[in-house]
């Protein structure tokens, strides 16, 4: 059983077909990179996996950890261990980051039938992780992403990844907009996360991230379908030559 099994997926956004016959398998322990030109459907794929309202599967199936995702609510997918780091994390003013993280963690535990973790223990863990990601623990008191810089928002996504310990992490351009140090911090976070039991789907435009997080497979998405797959050398070739040769 694959961790993620996408088979012949067609999906539309607001009635517009975007993904066209996309198939992909990710096994536990693997990191897959997804590259592709702007507008090729990478974020759409991420949102479809997460069950975002408005993203409609018109044909094909997706199963996660052996369970079909059709009709499963987004929060249930999350609780089952499917995590999406957003390309553009949204702000929730007034709700403190810590409160938000705790609510998220409690909901994950509740889904497993566990009691909420003690606030003290959780806060300690959150602070330590934040520090490790170069985020001042003061950030935990601020509103969710409220007034965070682009890079801070991305680190905050990784903080959530490490706190929630999902089975599959879909990271949508988490490297975009990061300075060189931040890139390394985020990469270290992802490497810390990875294990034999979980998987990562890494959406990126830049080969340099893949120097830090070495993928098992690289796929190229163009116009809603995977047009090429290979090992990490494929990313190097793309870096050097662009996408044109693929459609040629």
């Amino acid at each position, binding site marked *: 059983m694959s961790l993620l099994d996408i088979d012949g997926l067609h999906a539309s956004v607001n009635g517009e077909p975007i993904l066209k016959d996309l198939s992909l398998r990710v096994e536990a322990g693997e990191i897959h990179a997804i590259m592709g030109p702007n507008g090729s459907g990478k974020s759409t794929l991420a949102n479809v996996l*997460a*069950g*975002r*309202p408005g993203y409609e599967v018109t044909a094909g199936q997706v199963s996660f950890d052996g369970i079909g995702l059709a009709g499963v*609510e*987004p*929060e249930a997918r*999350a*609780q089952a261990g499917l*995590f*999406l780091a*957003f390309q553009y*994390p*949204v*702000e*929730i*003013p*007034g*709700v*403190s980051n810590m*409160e*938000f993280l705790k*609510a*998220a963690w409690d*909901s*994950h535990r509740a*889904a497993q039938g566990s009691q909420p973790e003690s606030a003290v223990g959780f806060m300690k863990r959150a602070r330590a992780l934040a520090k490790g990601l170069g985020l001042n623990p003061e950030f935990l008191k601020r*509103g*969710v992403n409220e007034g965070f810089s682009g890079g801070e928002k991305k680190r905050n996504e990784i903080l*959530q990844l490490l706190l*929630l310990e999902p089975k599959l992490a879909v990271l949508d351009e988490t490297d975009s907009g990061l300075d060189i140090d931040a890139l390394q911090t985020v990469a270290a976070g992802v490497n810390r996360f990875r294990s034999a039991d979980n998987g990562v789907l890494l959406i990126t435009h830049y080969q340099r991230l893949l120097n830090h997080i070495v993928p098992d497979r690289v796929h190229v998405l163009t116009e809603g379908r995977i047009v090429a797959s290979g090992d990490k050398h494929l990313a190097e070739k793309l870096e050097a030559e662009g996408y044109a040769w693929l459609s040629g």
Partner: protein
Amino acid sequence: MSESPIDIVGQEYRAGFVTDVVSDTLPPGLSEAVVRHISAKKREPAWMADWRLAAYGKWRAMTPPDWAHVRFPPIDFEGISYYSAPKSLADAPASLDEVDPELLRTYEKLGIPLHEREALAGVVKSPSVAVDAVFDSVSIATTFKDKLAEAGVIFCPISEAVHSHPELVRKYLGSVVPQQDNFYAALNSAVFSDGSFVYVPEGVRCPMELSTYFRINERNTGQFERTLIIADAGAYVSYLEGCTAPMRDENQLHAAVVELVALDNAEIKYSTVQNWYPGDAEGKGGIYNFVTKRGACLGASSKISWTQVETGSAITWKYPSVVLRGAGSVGEFHSVALTNNHQQADTGTKMIHLGPNTRSTIISKGISAGQSQNSYRGLVRTSPAAKGARNYTQCDSLLLGDACGAHTFPYIENKSPTATIEHEATTSKVSDDQLFLCQQRGIDPEKAISMIVNGFCKDVFRELPMEFAVEAGKLLEVSLEGAVG
């Protein structure tokens, strides 16, 4: 969601039960004879009866206000009963042991313990709250009277104060809200039934939170309570009121008057958690909450702050205000008003700056969901004598869905050239993106909405006594159920 939102809202008004007690209720209708009858029931002195009759005369000549942004069919004031009391209280109980156990159970069910030892055992999280419980037209029990008396604090039903402290009642009753102030205030002055009276003597810091719990039980009755709080020079008191009513198909009128008086350097903190029955999801039934609340900062450097969390009632018409007479006195208004389904709220405040260097702050948070209408209406007025007066107003609205409305009606009348008046207003919506972020982190939409709304209200909840802030948060959550999905 498996249940329809309608079911959820219906089920979730947890205070919606009826207590089965035999009541002594006047037949509907209002006349001089009814006013006299109410006064006689309470064995009031002649001055009190005369005061009521004067108010009745004024009321007859008045018409209900029509300027608020609310809609409802005209009220038949002859169809309402103006007095109802549980029969068992016909002769007022001397102690809790004499109170009908059925009534005590009612308050227990509502989480309001009237037995002092239970309060101490932590039924209410704070052992330091004294409670006056008003059931329909009468006060049924006041706790911790002795402990308060030690500190010199008077906390009793106003019907009792008329007898035990006539000089204070005569001096201050109607001094802040005159009888003819408005239609409902005049009505209340004529027929007011019971309510709380508080006097904190000079220099005394009231040793515990005081609270009144209002409960409407009887069908077709109005509740007209009257509260009077006086903080003498240098005194401090914090007071909280809570309210609930059974779920009924017809609308019920609640027309209260609250008057606060703060002398030199005195401070009164008045908090309300209003959870009257809001009606069902179709807008049937619910309380008409037409209330006049006003405080007078008579003394220099005195302070009055109103904090309200308004989640209930079919219609709310309410403007807790402060008249800032004393030099350097301070008025505050912190409000959360939440409307769902077909609720309508027109609420806000008036800050009347008369004295020099008076300051006021207004923080209003309106949340509208369902098909509800939520209006903020506020007046800031400065007189020529109010040199250096300052006001800061912040008025935020949050919309859930597309079918509801949020409105802001700020009025500024500035006659003081040296006054500073600031007004800020925002309107925001809970976005689908915010909800999806929460869901993607495993948080279901209802919990997410409640978290976002609570975050929005934080500045106001901070003003509530700790225990009540927690309650208020839960109340919002319950009131919002069915607002999404």
